[in-house]
């Protein structure tokens, strides 16, 4: 009986402890300000790093960053469930989103390049050849001057921002044929690295020595070529807010867009800064030269 009492007492103490802990943490998060940013996994590292720096410099604030994908980010911001929705796409491009309610804040530019397995033996493709590969007209790498290996397509999931950008600007809006789908860039890279004949596409920051990146029409996938739009497969990274941002949300977005972050963090993490761009592109894909810098 006394042992039972002891156990009961212990449970009570633990419960009380948890209650006190919950109360304490509640106090903390209410004492300061906190915002939540949800969405694109491609943009997540940047927002996380910027959030850490910001909260370090502004005590009592808290920026909570979660992944979930572009679709999740846009639907959560549309519902007003979070303060910031991270997206790889213009809200107007995503189905089911009323983009007029959302305000766009561009914080980075991401270049996307096709990658192939090293055994393929191809370093350059024309746009026509690339479309042929992804629509299934070209089924062996011999047809484009490579090794005798069957083409293995690896796509990102439907609705992924990287895939949407690649199909729009890399494949000139042709639709890739149904093939393997993976839900993360890291996974895509490791599969391309190990599967002979594999081709896929990832953001520049994911390219490493295990895979071969491809030139398109003899234009190399470099940051300089992205800034002049010679390399056409790139997209903005957006922070969306519902209506004009206020308070901490406004300050945080201004911080991410400030030169301090754009010149350091954005570039360290493999993104380009929108300030570097010599062109501007809108949701319909129309490109406009930005005056002066050329």
């Amino acid at each position: 009986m006394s042992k039972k009492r002891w156990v009961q007492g212990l449970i009570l103490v633990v419960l009380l402890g948890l209650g006190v802990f919950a109360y304490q943490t509640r106090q903390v998060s209410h004492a300061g300000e906190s915002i939540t940013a949800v969405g694109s996994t491609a943009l997540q590292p940047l927002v996380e790093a910027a959030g850490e720096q910001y909260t370090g410099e502004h005590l009592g604030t808290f920026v909570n960053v979660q992944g979930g994908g572009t679709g999740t980010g846009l639907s959560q911001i549309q519902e007003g469930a979070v303060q910031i929705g991270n997206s790889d796409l213009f809200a107007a491009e995503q189905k089911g989103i009323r983009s007029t309610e959302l305000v766009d804040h561009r914080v980075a530019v991401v270049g996307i390049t096709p990658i192939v397995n090293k055994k393929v033996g191809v370093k350059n493709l024309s746009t026509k050849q690339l479309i042929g590969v992804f629509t299934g007209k070209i089924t062996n790498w011999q047809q484009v001057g490579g090794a005798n290996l069957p083409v293995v397509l690896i796509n990102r999931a439907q609705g992924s921002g990287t895939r949407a950008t690649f199909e729009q600007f890399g494949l000139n809006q042709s639709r890739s044929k149904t093939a393997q789908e993976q839900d993360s860039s890291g996974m895509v890279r490791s599969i391309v690295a190990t599967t002979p004949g594999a081709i896929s596409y990832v953001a520049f920051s994911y390219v490493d020595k295990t895979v071969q990146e491809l030139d398109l029409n003899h234009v190399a996938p470099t940051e300089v070529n992205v800034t002049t739009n010679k390399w056409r497969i790139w997209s903005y990274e957006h922070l969306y807010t519902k209506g004009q941002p206020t308070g901490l949300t406004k300050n945080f977005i201004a911080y991410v867009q400030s030169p301090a972050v754009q010149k350091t963090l954005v570039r360290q993490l493999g993104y380009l800064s929108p300030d570097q761009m010599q062109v501007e592109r809108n949701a319909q894909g129309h490109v406009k030269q930005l005056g002066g810098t050329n």
Partner: protein
Amino acid sequence: MKATQQLEQQLKRRSKAAKLEIWGRVVSFSALLLIVAVVVAIIGFVASKGIATFTSNHVNLWDFLTGKQWNPNITDANGKPEVGALPMIVGSFLITILSALVATPFAIGTAVFMNEISPNKGAKILQPVTELLVGIPSVVYGFIGLSVVVPVTRAIFGGSGFGILSGTCVLFVMILPTVTSMSADALKSVPRYYREASLALGATQWQTIYKVVLRAATPGLMTAVVFGMARAFGEALAVQMVIGNAALMPNSLVSPSSTLTSVLTTGIGNTVMGSLQNNALWSLALVLLLMSLVFNLIIRLIGRKGRLQ
């Protein structure tokens, strides 16, 4: 007079044990209520979302179940969205049945060894090993599948290595411990005097196992297999890593294909709540839920039949 009143009061008062009993009942009943509420809420939520594809997006149920094109983002020539779930349904069933077919002989063999042939070694070595296998997280199985099974499949059978065969290999190892331990329980529950009677009649050990023990344990063994199938059907992560996730009808065991779960996990983060793309995924989830209900019903049915004998 006063003494009797006092006694009456004492007797009428609830005893400590009775109070404890009421308290216990309240606790267990509220736990039950909570769980029932959670289950009902989950089923209700999935059903309401899953049915929306057919009610608010006007997709034909038959087209959904038999269509072979899965591209919720685009519409076909008739202006209807391409949401044919047949490739995923076929993929899920193929991989489930195949892995159960491969796992069952091994599982029953192990269970027979553990129970009938060498109970000592079985209890000492095999029991802990199977229990260890249960504890390995599915992402580890998936990772091993990706870095070992897929290249080996590619080297032996060609193709990209991603496909139903690799999925079957991974699931086989994953469901083996479940089926084994449940088969062992089924064999254990065969009464000792069955074996004694059989041996007394002059049957050899093999004859006893084959003609008496396994026959008597059949309902239990079948339950074990169906349990394993239910686990294989619902497994998402490990399968997703090795099957290739291509919404194509599987034309061979090494062609990339997909299961209901793999399409769900890759797609759900890229769709917007309330859109057709999202609802179509919920419909897949509903199919998945209904199938696990069917598996449960089968298990119950087998259990009932086994009792009647």
